[in-house]
């Protein structure tokens, strides 16, 4: 028998009592190139289960998305009233060389809205690869602590800390983590996240 | 007179030389007469025929067919005159190979725009013993049959003059005799004035008169 889903009403048929955490991000969150189960959000879900915590992980990754879409997508994912939204947006801004002021403004608007709507948010620290130039690298990475401070949100460490630039942990494109990479990403995020749950 | 030739001369220019083929030739053929013109190869039989048929021009003299001179006729007038007054029987039959016997026979009438019925044509075929061959093409007929058909075609327009060019020349002797029997029977019955050009003296003897073409004139 086929169950019929309606898009607008179907935000995840999970146990209603479980608390929800949404990963709002780009291709890294989507798990570009790896199966959904092998991407870090689902790996974290497994860890949560193993730790017998009552949390449901929702992955809202969209490849190629930039910080400009953060606010509208934040509104979309919070319709389901998650406990925490973990924002991992901005990598594509950096990779495309967008102005850092623009990225900061976009993220700031989303954080402002979250503050107004009392939505708990964790902001993920992001970097651009060093080849973009020290100047840009520095400017880009500085926006995250500044925003965290301004909007009083928790700042999570860089998720690709142990993965970026390591050929064995990345796919052929050198940017997206492979299955092994995602395991490490999940480990490092969970190490941080466990304290927050 | 059906055919009168007076003082007919014809020569060809070959290089710098002028070759006289016919020299002051005279001939009178009365109506319904059958005459033979015999001569050795190269004596000018073909030239003689071409001139009488109005297919070629001549240097001097006159040809009258049915008392009309053909000298002053234009090409188109000659074509019309020829179709209406002269019938032909060729050594090589010259039938149209892709048309049936019936169609070959009716073609001259159609060209002249004369009315006819299928029965007319079939009757004519009957007369030359080809009634059963009406729907056959020349390629499916024997040489004798072809020449009989050609004979019927030569007579179908009721010409005032029939020109026959070695009609049996392309047939074996037995068939030749049979065809020529039919030939004489037909021209005599239809009272058609006939000039038979041949080198066969036996055949010539069956005509009313024999002219021998020699040194460019008839004897």
């Amino acid at each position, binding site marked *: 028998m*086929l169950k*019929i889903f309606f*898009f607008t009403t179907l935000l995840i*048929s999970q146990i209603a009592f479980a608390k929800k955490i949404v990963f709002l991000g780009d291709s890294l969150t*989507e798990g*570009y190139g*790896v*199966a959904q189960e*092998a991407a870090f959000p689902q790996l974290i879900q497994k860890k949560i289960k193993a730790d017998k915590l009552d949390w449901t992980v929702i*992955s*809202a990754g969209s*490849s*190629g998305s*930039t910080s*400009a*879409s953060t606010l509208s*997508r934040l509104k979309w*994912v919070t319709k389901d009233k998650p406990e925490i939204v973990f924002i991992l947006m901005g990598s594509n801004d950096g*990779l*495309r*060389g967008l*102005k850092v002021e*623009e990225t900061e403004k976009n993220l700031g608007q989303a954080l402002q809205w979250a503050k107004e709507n009392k939505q708990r948010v964790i902001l993920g620290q992001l970097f651009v*690869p*060093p*080849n*973009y*130039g*020290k*100047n*840009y690298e520095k400017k880009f990475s500085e926006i995250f602590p500044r925003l965290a401070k301004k909007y009083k949100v928790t700042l999570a460490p860089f998720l690709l800390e142990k993965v970026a*630039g390591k050929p064995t942990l*990345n*796919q*052929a494109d*050198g*940017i997206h983590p*492979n299955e*092994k990479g995602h395991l490490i990403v999940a480990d490092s995020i969970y190490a941080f996240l466990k304290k927050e749950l | 007179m059906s055919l009168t030739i007076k003082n007919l001369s014809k020569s060809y220019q070959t290089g710098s030389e002028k070759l006289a083929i016919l020299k002051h030739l005279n001939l009178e053929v009365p109506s319904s007469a059958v005459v033979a013109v015999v001569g050795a190869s190269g004596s000018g039989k*073909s030239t003689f*025929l*071409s001139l009488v*048929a109005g*297919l070629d021009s001549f240097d001097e003299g006159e040809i009258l067919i049915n008392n009309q001179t053909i000298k002053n006729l234009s090409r188109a007038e000659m*074509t019309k005159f020829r*179709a209406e007054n002269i019938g*032909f029987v060729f050594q*090589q039959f*010259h039938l149209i190979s*892709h048309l049936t016997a019936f169609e070959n026979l009716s*073609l*001259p009438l*159609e*060209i*002249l725009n004369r009315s006819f019925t299928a029965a007319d044509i079939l009757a004519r075929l009957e007369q030359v013993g080809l009634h059963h061959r009406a729907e056959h*093409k*020349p390629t*499916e007929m024997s040489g004798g049959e072809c020449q009989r058909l050609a004979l019927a075609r030569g007579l179908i327009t009721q010409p005032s003059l029939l020109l026959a060019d070695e009609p049996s*020349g*392309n047939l074996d002797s037995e068939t030749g005799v049979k065809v020529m029997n039919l030939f004489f029977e037909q021209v005599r019955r239809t009272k058609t004035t006939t000039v038979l050009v041949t080198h066969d003296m036996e055949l010539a003897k069956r005509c009313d008169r024999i002219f021998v073409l020699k040194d460019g004139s008839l004897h």
Partner: protein
Amino acid sequence: MKLKTLLKLSVLELIRFRKITSFLIFNFTLGLVGFFLLQIFQQSLSAQTAEKAQVVLGGDISINARRAFSEAEIKTWEAEIPFTEKTHFYSLFSMLRTKTDARLTSVGVFDSNYPLYGKFKLSNQGFSSDKARVWVDPEIQEILELKLADLVDIGEAQFEYSGTIVEDPSRLFRGAGFAPRVLIHSNYLAASQLIKPGSTFSENWIYKLPPKQNIAAIKNKVEKIIKDPVVQIESVADSEQDSNRVLKYFTDYLGLVALVALGLCFLCGSYLLQWTFQTKKKSIAIFKTLGLSDRKILAIYLLQSLIIAVVSCLLCILFVRLVLPGMQSLVTNQFQLPIELSVDLLSLIIISLVGIMGPLLMTVPQILQIFELQALELFQNASIDTRRNKLYYFWLAFSLALFWALSVWQSHSVKVASGFVGALVFLIILFSYLNRFILFLLEKSAARFSWLTRYAIKGLTRRAASTSLVFTTMSLATLVLSLLPHLKSSILSEIRPQQTSQIPQLFLFDIQPEQVSPLQKISENVLAAKLKFSPLVRSRILKINDQPYERIVQDTGFQTRESENEARFRNRGVNLTYSDTLQPSEVLVAGTFSGVRTDQNELPQISLEEKYAERVGVKIGDLMTFDVQGTEMQAQVSSLRQVRWTSFQPNFFILFPKGVLEDAPQIFLTSVSQEMNPVKKFQQEVVQKFKNVSVIDVSKTIQNSLKYIDQMSLGLQMMAWLAVSVGLFVFIILLNTQIRERLQEMNLVQILGATEAQIRKAIFIQFFVLMSISIASGILLGLIAAKLLLTFLFNISTVYDWQYLVFLAGLIVPISFLAIYFGLKPLQKLNPMDLIRQS
């Protein structure tokens, strides 16, 4: 009898029939010249294709990965590659900074050896390493207002702006990336510190091999050594395949044109030989009565054909030698094609083989008749129809097999060749039946007309064999004349948009939902046009018919590159779009697409792109489960679409109806077409107001490849006209011989009283009828054949070139009339006296 005597007899007869002999020689020479020239053009084109591939790749074999290679790795593979030259470069993204501004650029870090084939075209001066210099795409120069000797920063080093990149051969057929290109010399890489731990870059090694190396085998060996699936190994052959689909179509097309030209001439030659034979029958019969054996008569005729063939061949080679320099200058100067026309030994050998074997082979049916010909024929009035014995069919099969082999050689494809030859045979059979049917109808209706018309029509219907031959040949000639332009126009429409107005200048993506209407306003203000926005919704395919779709990867990693690629493809996620209508560049090929989802209780009915559906393994009626950013949803495939990707419009594999995805997180794409003039102003305004929106200027890339295609198709047109002129020549020859055949009959009809005008009218009616039905059926079947060829061989959709058809008709009709006019000339010499003289 000695060979010398035979030769003498042969030559004497050839001279006696000198008119026909020279006709035959002319015919074969023309066919061979057509074939040879096309052949040269095609080969030069493929050579050029290969060169282009080398230029695009930068060498013969390339090894690259988005990581650094170790010394040891490089040493192992270099042991297997017998290279003569090598070059090493990096490609990475970095910010290029001036004192006031910064832009993302794609940096190419090259050594002095690059490229191994082709050349950079840079403004001002060549690529040099005398100091830290940078060359940039004109786009960057414009935006940053760079002047020569300005200093810019890339990474941690300073570079002197030294000019713009005018032409980078490696990017000729590749799409634009979202960052403009800049070039620096590898000597300054270290100083720039662009490559550090964590950097994303690709490292490339390119090798030039000595000529005549088996590149595929070398590539194979290297693939075996390099175990890491991340490393890409590319060879010229691969790059030829993907970047030159266009050229492949062109060369296939040229091959067919060449064969058609040759086939037509051989058909015509075959007809001429048969026709000649009819007139020579008598002399053969005479030879026979003189006691010449069949074998010797055969020798005489083979010798004659051989002489004709050799003479034609020599004339052809001589002629081509003479015109080649002229053609070269035409190709270079007129059509601006970078093609070097050259004759290689192989083509010379092939041409000679074809030129000599062809006529000899065509003599075979006549030779078979020699054996059957009786001396008796001399005395018979009737002509014996050629009996088709076993040997004849064997000959036919053999000739076909040879023609097929030639087609394979020419088109480099068994499939193309078989389709081509099969279609040809099918058409010939079809034409002969069609002809019989039309003749039957004509004969039936003839009774209604005047005697002249009736007589004229009978002249056709009663000569079934001869009429059929003319009909088939003329129809076939018309068919190919009309077929080629359809092929050409379809190929062109496949590789380039029909309307230049639709060629986009800019691509805009990452447009947020709330930015759509302000952007539309800018467009209306600045461009005075409405843009079409295509929504893009990211998702993953979870299941197809309840079977998991994604590939879980074991810890052991991937066995092969193919399995990795397949898994990555499946796990990559897909872009969905929604719309209530199909785009002009899309055609439904199966099922229905309703546009709007009306019944909320039903599954959304979606449409998939045909080839994508095939790759994913989905049929109509299948259920697909998507994950749209955390939300699962199911949809049913209700239709398949064909998408013309060369429309250069945003196209999607998966299309949803309206009423399903509107609320899902999405971005929008749009493109701005060329006709709108103030595009620059629009671009500036967009960049200023919507900083997140990426604007890519694609005009240059698209224009470049379009220009190339246009030049190419001009060259092709020239070649096609060569085939067309061959066809027209065949036309004229056929008419001429047909009219000659009727001369004696016309003499008789004239003596029976038909006027010259009537005779001319009768002949005219015959040819008018014959030609109009041949041309009509040729054109009609050309349309059908084009459809079949394009659908099954080229696999592209058919675009008929109606304009050309009209043009063709406008050309064939006057030429036919001219041909009839000249063909009727002998009628003026009609001389009924011949009837008497023959006696």
